[in-house]
């Protein structure tokens, strides 16, 4: 198992001149993701959510660190494990939960579900259900940016998130190569939670230090402790600065540890008790809370107050999502095509194919 950096978060907190309000904000965002995902798991067991449902539990520090490094003008592509990214990017929890419930108020109108959250205002250009499917489109988005503008500190950039397992697919390597030869403003971020479903990184990757996989393409790589929100933010900002400022594609690896199974239905029997203990020990949320309390940024009552407010907000979001209407069957053929053309067949099962 690859060990995350042993740098203690408390040292990072003490070593910075962060505004306490900023740190409390990060804690609130991380807690929001934690609670949202716990409620999503609960809603899944109540059959309010169908299909696949992958949670960011254990990745909250990585999620928040990456999202606060992005500018509003940057573009984001993610994998299917993306509820937390949508939340931290600014999507209202009710709109994400409504999507999970398959309702019209959802981010994708109920047509995408958990794996396919999309919000053009937030420049969140999709969660993608196919492993690594987002990598080529993200690379092409960066091509569009480079097509329109040269590099500069005020330019837009693309962040493309992918899991450790996706570094083994061909498209990852094809696209790193394209980004290198075309000099694209993109940061590929490997969110390494150390397991691709049940397969360890060591069993799957010839170079298990995944940030080195850009070497063949002369793309600089860096590994960062994904449980350290400030370290993630710092590394992501630096990578984005080079991408936008120099059109130098970058590869960042944030190492954390998934707290639960691959998806909500996975009991993770392939993990040992020792693994689970280690995952709990690395859990970024209690650690960050303790460190903020230790350094006087928070006290226990203030932390409890934030927790209660987050619980309340997510509970209200769940209720509001449940009030959002389901799509009407009459809308089935909406959005199959953006440009209407003649003779698009819109028969339901059993309907005639030709009008008499």
């Amino acid at each position, binding site marked *: 198992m690859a060990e995350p950096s042993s740098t203690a978060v408390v040292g990072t907190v003490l070593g910075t001149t962060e505004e306490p309000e900023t740190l409390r904000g990060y804690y609130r965002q991380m807690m929001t993701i934690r609670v949202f995902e716990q409620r999503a798991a609960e809603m899944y067991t109540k059959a309010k959510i169908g299909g696949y449902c992958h949670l960011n539990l254990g990745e909250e520090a990585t999620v928040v660190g990456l999202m606060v490094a992005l500018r509003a003008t940057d573009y984001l592509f993610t994998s299917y494990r993306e509820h937390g990214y949508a939340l931290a990017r600014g999507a209202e929890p009710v709109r994400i939960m409504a999507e999970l419930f398959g309702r019209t108020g959802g981010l994708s109108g109920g047509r995408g579900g958990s794996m*396919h959250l999309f919000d053009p205002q937030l420049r969140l250009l999709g969660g993608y259900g196919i492993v690594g499917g987002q990598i080529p*489109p993200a690379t*092409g988005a960066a*091509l569009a940016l480079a097509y329109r503008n040269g590099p500069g500190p005020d330019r837009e950039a693309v962040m493309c998130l992918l899991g450790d397992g996706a570094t083994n697919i061909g498209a990852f390597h094809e696209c790193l190569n394209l980004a290198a030869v075309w000099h694209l403003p993109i940061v590929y971020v490997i969110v390494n939670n150390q397991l691709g479903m049940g397969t360890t990184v060591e069993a799957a990757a010839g170079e298990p230090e995944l940030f080195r996989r850009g070497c063949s393409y002369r793309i600089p790589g860096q590994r960062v402790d994904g449980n350290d929100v400030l370290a993630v933010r710092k590394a992501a900002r630096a990578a984005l600065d080079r991408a936008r400022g120099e059109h130098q594609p970058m590869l960042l690896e944030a190492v954390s540890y998934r707290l639960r199974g691959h998806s909500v239905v996975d009991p993770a029997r392939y993990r040992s008790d020792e693994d689970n203990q280690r995952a709990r020990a690395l859990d970024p949320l209690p650690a960050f809370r303790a460190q903020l309390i230790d350094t006087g940024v928070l006290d226990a009552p203030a932390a409890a107050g934030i927790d209660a407010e987050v619980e309340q907000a997510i509970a209200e979001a769940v209720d509001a999502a449940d009030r959002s209407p389901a799509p009407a069957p009459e809308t089935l053929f909406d959005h199959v095509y953006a440009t209407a053309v003649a*003779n698009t067949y819109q028969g339901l099962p059993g309907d*005639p194919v030709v009008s008499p």
Partner: protein
Amino acid sequence: MTVISYRQALHDTLRAEMLRDEDVLLIGEEIGLFEGSYKITAGLLAEFGPRRVRDTPICEEGFVGAAIGAAMLGLRPVVEIMTINFSLLAIDQIVNHAAKMHSMFGGQARVPLVIRTPGGGGQQLAATHSQNLEVWYAHVPGLKVLAPATPADAKGMLTAAIRDDDPVILLENLALYNTNGEVPDGDHTLDIGTASVLKPGRDLTVVAYSRATVVALDVARRLDEEGISVEVVDLRSLRPLDRDTVCASVRKTSRAVVLEDDWLSYGIGAEIAATIGEGAFDYLDAPVRRVAAAEVPLPYAKPLELAALPDAAALTRVIRDTLDATRFAG
């Protein structure tokens, strides 16, 4: 009207659309310096530069997917895949991504992408380089699949495809590039999703697309001299499919043969035959027949290749059989 080749029509259309719209760019293998495997893009790198005529490494999944992402941000990429056989390397991006995004993201994403790619056998390119896989894409909702047979339609359909906001696959054909025909001057677009009756007739309808349409027209003209009146319906658009035009023709002629370059089972002809069976059953005087490729990986040796591919002789024989089967029908 000007008489030009199918190749020239494609080239001129690409150039005209690039001049008209700065967001149109070309992406593909060997389209720039090499000027394209089939020279459709000849001269365009020199005229427009490497920003707009973008040579790629050999990575179909990567560059097709990148074109999808560029289209999501509002560019209008026209991708050349050297032959349709290589599109299989990009099929995840085409089928799982381009075709899905507008719908799956609730109408919030658009993918105004064109993929141009030639299919077709008969060039002794053997099994991996001679396929007609258009039905794989025509099967998928969210894609539009066009298959022009004439230089005029090549211009009109490519123009329409570039201006359309959905992913469009434009099927070309190696055997058509050097064919000539009259092409309207100036701006010329066609309605995607419409078939065309290229030659009216009374006795039998031949339904075809792409290269097969040219063969069908040739056969129909020769049979005219014998007093056999064949109507030729050129599908032009495989998705959407203009079923009404097909059925209207068969309701008039009462007999139909499909000529197609793809394999017979589950092919375009199967869809057409089922459509006619449902939409013109009471009008039929004979079973609908299909003339399609033999179901083998296409061999290299010329006699075997010729034996496998549908041609004018096979179509003529099946037309005669179909008419003969109904000679007592009154």
